[in-house]
């Protein structure tokens, strides 16, 4: 047995390793070492915990065993293009774990102090329990919605694959059935529908029906959605205050978790496309804050430190993402786009669009000294990263300098494009930030825009009335020639036409990203 003092010292050590994990993330060279530091910190914290008192190993082993298998399989099988979904799901498990730990802790505390429980549970524990249930539940349900939107099975009209149906209907069924079972067996049946327990049971059932029902809809918005958001927020707060006053009332805890679940679903459901990076970063932050709140519940310093590190990290990322879109967090959460004027007519904007072919591009690239590739979500969808890398390598062999200009919100999560290009073995020195590449854009001969739209729309600079006004963009229009690879002239997430496509120095190459890059490779070879 480790004495409590030694255990606490090991916790301090673990916290230091967590800080070094994040610190070493500041450079690709040291980042791998940082991850090992994080693993070491976690192993130390777990070891110090389980050896500090006599515990039932069997029970713990069940959870750890199942969790390890699921975690291993998921992490090894996931494709790099699906990384946003993976991070979304992991956020959700973190949030759920926080709710469950806080719930279990309250039950344990109340039973240990049976009698004058309400008074004996300290104020800190009560407030922290409320925070834990609230933030954890919002994180869990919000993350599920984010995952469902990224995997394209929530709020969509088209036909679903079997696995998507299983998850979508299964999740709703479990939520409704679980809430129904809990409400009936714990509330209505033993105490009658009119009693306070019965009413709480009914509240849980209503929340379950709301969550399960809303998630089955084929649209991601509905009339009165923002009003319901407000109501579920106020309801969560109200139940939270009640729970602080009467912590021995375990049913209130689950009512709170259920109401916060409705809030989590509503907050994320209407968000999609280019706003996804903000939500993923925000949920990341919540999962940390939920862990920190749980730390307050069970009075554990390492939980508080680790949780607040993660919370801070998520807040920073959220902030970077919001700035990169020139939108406030409230705007994103309530689905408001910037100042909306009359959207210019697409036909008018696109009347002088010129299209091109792979051969023409190959000829143009012949004399190009500097080439910049600007990838967007379209590259991820087409899984074109390996083809892009081969294409770039070929141009480099011919003496050109090829770099990548990466917008902070390109893709569906922070750093999405970087991971894909790293997977294709692109040297990280060639991945240039928006500001860096913009400073040199006038020296660039050819820019190839691959599956990006809003992040290269010059309207953001020129039209103060546009929904994306003021959003920092990659100034591809300042390069000598721009090639835009795109399936069609359809608008991006902001839903506005892009005048870049009809500029004199822009050529459109209508094609799937991967097919286009492969055609260009062939054409450049033939052009030798």
């Amino acid at each position, binding site marked *: 047995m480790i004495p409590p003092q030694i255990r606490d010292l090991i916790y301090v050590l673990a916290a230091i390793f967590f800080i070094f994990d*994040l610190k070493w*993330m500041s450079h*690709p060279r040291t980042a791998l070492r940082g991850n090992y530091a994080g693993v070491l910190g976690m192993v130390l914290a777990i070891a110090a915990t389980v050896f500090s008192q006599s515990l039932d190993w069997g029970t713990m082993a069940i*959870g750890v065993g199942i969790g390890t298998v699921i975690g291993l399989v998921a*992490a090894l099988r996931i494709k790099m293009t699906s990384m946003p979904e993976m991070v979304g799901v992991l956020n959700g498990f973190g949030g759920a774990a926080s709710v469950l730990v806080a719930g*279990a802790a309250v039950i344990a505390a109340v039973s240990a102090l049976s009698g004058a429980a309400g008074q004996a549970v300290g104020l800190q524990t009560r407030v922290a329990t409320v925070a834990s249930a609230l933030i954890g539940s919002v994180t869990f349900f919000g993350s599920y919605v984010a995952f469902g939107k990224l995997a394209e099975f929530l709020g969509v009209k088209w036909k679903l694959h079997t696995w998507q149906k299983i998850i979508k209907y299964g999740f709703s069924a479990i939520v409704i059935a679980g809430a129904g079972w809990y409400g009936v067996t714990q509330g209505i049946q033993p105490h009658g529908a009119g009693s306070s327990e019965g009413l709480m049971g009914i509240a849980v059932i209503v929340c379950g029906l709301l969550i399960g029902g809303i998630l089955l809809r084929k649209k991601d918005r509905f009339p009165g959605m923002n009003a319901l958001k407000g109501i579920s927020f106020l309801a969560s707060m109200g139940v939270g205050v009640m729970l602080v006053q009467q912590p021995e009332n375990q049913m209130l805890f689950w009512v709170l978790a259920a109401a916060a679940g409705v809030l989590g679903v509503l907050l994320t459901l209407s968000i999609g496309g280019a706003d996804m990076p903000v939500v993923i970063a925000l949920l990341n932050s919540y999962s940390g804050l939920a862990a920190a709140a749980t730390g307050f519940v069970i009075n554990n310093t390492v*939980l508080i430190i680790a*949780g607040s*590190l993660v919370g801070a990290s998520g807040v*920073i990322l959220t902030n970077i993402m919001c700035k990169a879109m020139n939108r406030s967090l409230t705007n994103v959460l309530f689905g408001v786009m910037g100042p909306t004027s009359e959207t210019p007519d697409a036909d008018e904007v696109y009347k002088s669009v010129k299209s091109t072919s792979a051969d023409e591009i190959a000829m143009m690239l012949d004399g190009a000294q500097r080439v910049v590739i600007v990838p967007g979500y379209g590259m991820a969808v087409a899984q074109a990263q390996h083809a892009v890398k081969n294409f770039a390598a070929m141009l480099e062999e011919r003496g050109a300098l090829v770099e990548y200009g990466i917008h902070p919100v390109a893709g569906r999560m922070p750093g999405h494009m970087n991971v894909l290009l790293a997977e294709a073995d692109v040297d990280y020195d060639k991945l240039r930030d928006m500001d860096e590449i913009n400073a040199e854009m006038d020296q660039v001969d050819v820019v190839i825009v691959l599956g990006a739209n809003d992040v290269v729309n010059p309207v953001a600079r020129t039209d103060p009335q546009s929904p994306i006004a003021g959003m920092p963009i990659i100034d591809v229009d300042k390069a000598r020639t721009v090639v835009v690879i795109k399936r069609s002239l359809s608008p991006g997430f902001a839903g506005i036409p892009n005048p870049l496509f009809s500029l004199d120095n822009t050529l459109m190459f209508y094609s799937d990203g991967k097919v286009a890059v492969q055609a260009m490779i062939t054409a450049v070879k033939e052009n030798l």
Partner: protein
Amino acid sequence: MELFIGALTVFVLAVFVGFEVVTKVPPTLHTPLMSASNAISGITLIGALLLAGQTDNPQLSRTIAVVGVTFATINVVGGFLVTHRMLAMFRKKN
């Protein structure tokens, strides 16, 4: 109350450390940063383990905690492993 102030101090200082450290992470590593910090937030695992393993806890509490252990373990194992996979790809070639 003293206990709470102590915990609150730790919380506030750790948030500042987090801000300082994470601001220096370049955009290239933002995805691995998220998955790594995700794994770290799986630290709730130790709380879950305690509640699941204490034999004097009520059965309901322990059952809930075991589910918590499972979720937190997925978070920790999956998070660190997927971060490792990503970071192993970021390298400099000569």
